[in-house]
C-alpha cells in the first residue's frame, strides 16, 4: 500500500499537545511522522510552519525536549519517526552526539534541508548518519539537475523527499501539473521510495501524487486543521482517515 507522511512541530502549541497530535496521526494510519525540532530561522518553511516554530521556541522547547518526546512516542507507536530540523541544531549539539542521541530515542532518520551533499567533505553528515544507523533523507527539487540526482542517488537511503514546484512549504490549490515527468526523471537515478511533498492539501491531490510517488507528504494542511478549536485533533483524525482510500 502507498504511504502517508505527516509532520508536527515539537512543542507546538505545547509539548504535550504535539505528542497527542502525533499519536492521533499514528492511530489514524499514517506511515511516517516528521518531528520538527523548532529553529529560529527555518528558511525552507512557509508561514504556517514558521509561526509554529516561533511559538514552540517561545514555549522554551529545546532539542532535548524533542528527543524525550520521540522516546515517549516510540513507546506508543511502531511507525518510523524522523527528526526534521535545520543544520545548526545538530551542528551546535555536536553532530555525532546528535546522531547517537537520535538513534537512542528510536529515530528512523533525519530530514535536514540545508545540508546539501556538497558539504559532505566538510561536515560528514551522511557518513555520521550511516554510522549510527540513521537514514539521512535527501531532499531534492524539480530543478535539481540530472548530474546531482546521480550523485544524490548514490548516497540516498530510506526514501528521497521530492519537493514539488519551486516553493517553500504551505498548502496550495493546484499541484504542479508536471510532477509526473519530474518523478520519472528522478526514478532514473534513484531506486528507493520517493516521497512527494510541499503543498498537498486534499484527497484528490493525494490520489494524484500517489499514482507516481510512494509516499505523500502532508504538512501545513494538517497543522492548520489541528489549530481549529475545540476539535482540532478530531478533524486531523477524520482528514487522515478520509485519505486512506486514496492510498490503495
Amino acid at each position: 500500500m502507498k504511504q502517508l507522511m505527516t509532520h508536527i512541530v515539537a512543542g507546538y502549541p505545547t509539548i504535550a499537545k504535539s505528542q497527542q497530535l502525533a499519536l492521533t496521526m499514528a492511530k489514524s494510519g499514517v506511515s511516517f511522522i516528521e518531528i520538527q525540532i523548532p529553529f529560529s530561522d527555518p528558511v525552507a518553511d512557509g508561514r504556517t510552519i514558521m509561526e509554529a516554530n516561533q511559538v514552540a521556541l517561545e514555549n522554551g522547547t529545546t532539542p532535548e525536549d524533542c528527543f524525550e518526546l520521540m522516546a515517549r512516542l516510540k513507546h506508543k507507536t511502531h511507525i518510523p519517526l524522523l527528526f526534521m530540523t535545520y543544520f545548526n541544531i545538530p551542528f551546535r549539539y555536536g553532530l555525532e552526539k546528535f546522531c547517537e542521541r537520535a538513534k537512542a530515542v528510536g529515530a528512523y532518520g533525519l530530514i535536514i534541508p540545508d545540508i546539501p551533499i556538497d558539504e559532505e567533505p566538510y561536515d560528514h553528515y551522511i557518513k555520521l548518519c550511516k554510522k549510527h544507523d540513521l537514514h539521512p533523507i535527501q531532499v531534492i527539487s524539480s530543478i535539481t539537475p540530472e548530474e546531482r540526482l546521480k550523485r544524490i542517488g548514490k548516497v540516498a537511503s530510506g526514501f528521497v523527499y521530492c519537493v514539488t514546484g519551486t516553493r517553500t512549504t504551505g498548502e496550495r490549490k493546484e499541484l504542479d501539473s508536471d510532477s509526473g515527468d519530474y518523478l520519472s526523471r528522478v526514478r532514473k537515478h534513484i531506486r528507493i521510495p520517493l516521497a512527494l511533498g510541499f503543498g498537498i492539501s486534499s484527497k484528490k491531490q493525494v490520489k494524484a501524487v500517489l499514482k507516481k510517488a510512494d509516499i505523500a507528504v502532508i504538512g501545513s494542511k494538517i497543522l492548520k486543521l489541528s489549530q481549529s478549536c475545540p476539535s482540532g485533533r478530531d478533524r486531523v483524525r477524520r482528514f487522515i482517515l478520509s485519505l486512506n482510500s486514496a492510498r490503495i
Partner: protein
Amino acid sequence: MTSLKHYLLNGSGHFGLYGGRYLPELLIPIMEDLEKAFYAAIDDHKFLEELENLYSNYSGRPTPLTFCENLTRKLGGAKIFLKNEGLNHTGAHKINHCLGQALLAKRLGKKRIIAETGAGQHGLASATVAAKFGMECTVYMGAKDYDRQRPNVFWMERLGAKVVAVEEGGQILRDAISAALRDLISNPLDTHYLLGTVCGPHPYPVMNTFFQKIIGIEVREQLKKQEGKLPDYLVACVGGGSNAMGLFHDFLDDPEVKMIAVEAGGKGIHSKGSRFDHAARFQEGEVGVVEGFKSYFLQDANGQIGETQSISAGLDYSGVGPQLAYLKDLGRIEAYFALDTEIMEAYQMLAEQEGIFAAMESTHALVEVIKLAPKLKKDQIIVFNCSGRGDKDLFITTQHFDKKRFNAFLQQFT
C-alpha cells in the same frame, strides 16, 4: 607563503572551517549558475570595463582619501587618514557591490532584483541600481525596521521599488534575509537576489569582496601618492563585513599592515539566553550554520540565533562574514568593539575637527581610531574606512543632540 588575497576569493567558497553553501537543494542550481556567471564575468574585460565605468561615472569613484590633520594633531599620535566611502552615490560603500551584482544579473538575463535591508542603506542602493538597469525590485525589510526607517522606505518607493515589511520573527534584518531567500525559492528563474554583504552562501562572500576590494586598491595608490608608503593600521567597522573586506582585501598579503575590525558593543558585552545586548560576534559568538553559511553567530546553547542590539542598524546582525571569521582565527585581524555610549562623542569630534559626518556604523571604527592613535608614533599611519555618511542618521543624532527642538520642528507637520 600562499596568497591570502587569492584564497579568500577561491572557487570552493570555503575559507578554513567557514563559508560553504548550506542551502535547500532547490537553491543549489541557482547558486551554481550565479557562481559560474561570476567567475566568467571577472575574466571578461568588457564586464570589468563596464563596472569601472559605473564606478567612476555613476557612483563617483575614486572616493577621496583625506588626511585628518586636525584630528591627528588633537590626538597627538599616528597620522589619521579617512577613506571617504560616504561620498559614493547613495551615501555608502554598498553601491559598489550593488553595481557589480546588477551587471551580473543583467548578464544572466534576470528581470527582477530582490534584496534584504536592515537600516535601508543596502535596500536603497539596490533600488537605485534596479532603477538604473531597468529591473523590477522588491526589498524585504523587517517590520520593525520598516517602521523606524521611514525615510529610506520613502526613497526606495520613489525609486520604483516595492518595499515589503516582514512581519515574521523578530521583524529585523535576519527575518528580511529569510523572506528574501523564500522569495528566491519561489522565483528562482527570473530573479536575482542581491544579497548585501559578505555573508550568505557561496558565491556571495567572494563576489561582494571582489566588488568591494576597489576600496583597498584605491587606498594603496592614494596613500602611495600622499605619503609614499603603506599604512600601518587599517580600521573598519564590521556588521556583515562588506566595507571591512573591501578595505582589507588588497593588503592581506602585506604582513606589515595590521587590520582591526570593530563590532557593535551595543549596551555592553552581556547576554541572557538568546538575547544579546550587543552584536559582537567575535566576543560572544559561536560557530554555527545559518542563512546558508558557516561562521560565528550570536546564538544560545541550543543553536537558536540570538537577538542583537546596536545603535547602528547596519551592525545589528547576529552573523559575520566567513572570510573575516577565518582571518580572525588566523590572527590576521584583531577584533574590538565600540559601545553605543562612545559613538556620539566620536561622531561630534569628527564633525568639529574635519567637517565630516560619519554614519553611526563607521563611527564605530572611529572610536577605535581615537583610542589607538595616541598610542602610536607620529610617523605611523592609520587608515579608517568611513563607510558611509551620517545624513541617514538624522533621526538618531537629533534625538541625542537636539531632541526638544527637533521634535518640536517635526510637530509642525502633524
